[in-house]
């Protein structure tokens, strides 16, 4: 029920946007994410963007996973 999937914003028109959802284009509501820009990835839940994904944080998390994995190898 709380499923939300990443979607890339293609164009914005007021409180609506066109988004690429895994290769499918959909109109979504962006009323909850007023600062969203074209090219951003949002989390799409029941037709609305509920948050914007931070790509720098995503990269940091992956780097942390790789680091933790290496440490667990050495030990």
């Amino acid at each position, binding site marked *: *029920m709380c499923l939300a999937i990443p979607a890339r914003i293609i164009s914005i028109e007021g409180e609506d946007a066109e988004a690429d959802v895994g290769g499918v284009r959909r109109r979504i509501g962006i009323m909850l994410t007023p600062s969203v820009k074209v090219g951003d990835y949002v989390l799409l839940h029941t037709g609305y963007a509920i948050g914007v994904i931070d790509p720098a944080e995503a990269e940091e998390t992956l780097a942390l996973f790789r680091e*933790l994995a290496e440490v667990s190898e050495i030990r």
Partner: protein
Amino acid sequence: MRFVDEFHDPVLARKLANRIQRASKKPTRLMEFCGGHTHAILRYGIRDLLPPTVTMSSGPGCPVCVTSPGDIDRAIRAAQTQEAIVATYGDLVRVPGSRDSLERARARGSDVRVIYSALDALSIAEQHPGSQIVLLGIGFETTAPTVAASILEARRRGLKNYRVLSLLKLTPPVMRALLASGETRIDGIVCPGHVSVVIGTLPYDFIPRDFGVGCAVSGFEPLDILRAIDVLVQQVESGTPAVANAYPRAVAANGNRTARSLIEEVFEPCDAAWRGIGVVPGSGLAIRPEFAAFDASAVLGFGVEDAGEPAGCRCGDVLRGSLTPSECSLYGTGCTPEHPVGPCMVSQEGACAAHYAYGAGS
């Protein structure tokens, strides 16, 4: 899909699991609050990667599962009203109320439509000006701002035939109720990622402070979940429970301020009945009096008495994390996804349906 595939790396997953195995010495019982996490843990075989010291139990984070029989009865009554069209998210149509389900009401001629978004319910209202549309507003803080947005949009468009039956529920109050009951021993909570996108991490501060239990906000991909378990195991081993954010690409400490202020504008907290748990103070969202024209409960009234659970059904114990699905005598025999008795077997995110789908016998 970007931000999904990278978090599925099987080599990294195994290494994270090794790290958990090495660190875990004490028996550690973790609860994943969210039904989406239960589903993912079973789907990706995460339980099989964990050491015997770490056990996972499901929580009440499945909105379909925790909707009380009395609320289903009210929804059915809404559907039986003349000129009514009831719009609902997915699996709720199959959930038994005290005597009936929305699916059976539909078979008898009521107009019950499954929708994907509150926006769809608005479209139905525009297309059927002679009908009264009732959106069954189920869900947690993830869904609440979208329902609030639909009410504001209905007001903007001047729609007079759109109403919401708010069955929305709040996460932190029910976590407090579960921890305070002391019924289930919990050493750490995997907190719901998409609820937290909206509310942030600060509302969980009471969990380590008042109960000495750690929690970690987690995303829904396998690496996210393993990392959250890793963090909780480290907290248990070092005796330092805290609120950890293991989903920082989506969750900020303050959450989504716009979404929170929309919830605040349209709703106010109220007591809410949870299936299997009972009435939890301040755990629901009621529509504020300023928006009474959009409030279906004002039209429908209350007063439907709960008739309790179907005979033999132990969904309540499953939702509190005190029973695993296969410990229920109906599981897999009298209760299957084709012929569900209780809501945990109806919803795909219900613990029983997830266990059944992925063959987790014990």
